[in-house]
């Protein structure tokens, strides 16, 4: 129901695309891999949501775990290109106030590069 595509680029930013449904089952499928890739060490992470079809609170929780971990480590995570219904859920949960949401890759990268020291 959900899968990840990880892409590391030479500018030091890690892109994680989440595909499918982040309901209980989908989140269960990807959470270990997601946190391993995004929360283990200080990191600049873009979570690409362009192919995420459904997001429940359990999926939001996953993003928060990474965001809290990165905040502690001096890293940062941002969200990119959520579909309108997913974005609506993020905003309803107040997540946009905690994790920036971008609709443009460059703006997302700029934020990460200026916020996170090398």
């Amino acid at each position, binding site marked *: 129901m959900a899968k990840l595509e990880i892409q590391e680029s030479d500018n030091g930013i890690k892109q994680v695309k989440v595909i499918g449904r982040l309901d*209980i*089952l989908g989140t269960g499928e990807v959470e270990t891999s997601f946190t391993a890739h995004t929360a283990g060490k200080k990191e600049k992470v873009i979570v690409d949501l362009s192919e995420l079809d*459904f997001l429940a609170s359990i999926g939001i929780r996953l993003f928060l775990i990474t965001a*809290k971990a990165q905040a502690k480590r001096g890293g940062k995570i941002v969200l990119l290109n959520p579909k309108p*219904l997913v974005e609506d859920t993020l905003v*309803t949960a107040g997540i946009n106030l905690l994790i920036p949401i971008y609709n443009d890759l460059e703006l997302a990268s700029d934020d990460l590069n200026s916020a996170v020291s090398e």
Partner: protein
Amino acid sequence: MTVSTHNTLPHTGTTEILCYLTLKNKFDELNKLSVWINNDISTLFKISERTVFKVDLILAELIANIISYAYPSQCESEIVIKCHYFQDNIRIDIEDSGIPFNPLITPDVVLPQSLEEADIGGLGIHLIRHYMDEGTYQRKDNKNIFSVRLKI
């Protein structure tokens, strides 16, 4: 005469649709739930993608909570879900025989203002209450009956 594919049922007459689904209180039953919503309900009710998403979210949160919190561990039970389409409204009834719990009277979660203070959790009921247009709770015959109405 053609029928558009969403947000409108044909309406020469009046139509009422009832869909029932019974689930065990196990997480791997949630797969059936989303297939039921995104396939059966969505096709039959001809509702917009947005309404399907709302139904999906409300039920995902409610059923996950029932499976997580309503029963002592190892206790097998059944959750009955009824979706009722009638004149621009969807009513969803969820019936379980777990411990009494009224999701309408829990205090609303305080959305965190910073990552440091953010609690990992407590968003489910907030989302349910945001997306429904009306909710009613009854405790009857040792059952929780929670009903949600959505305008379409």
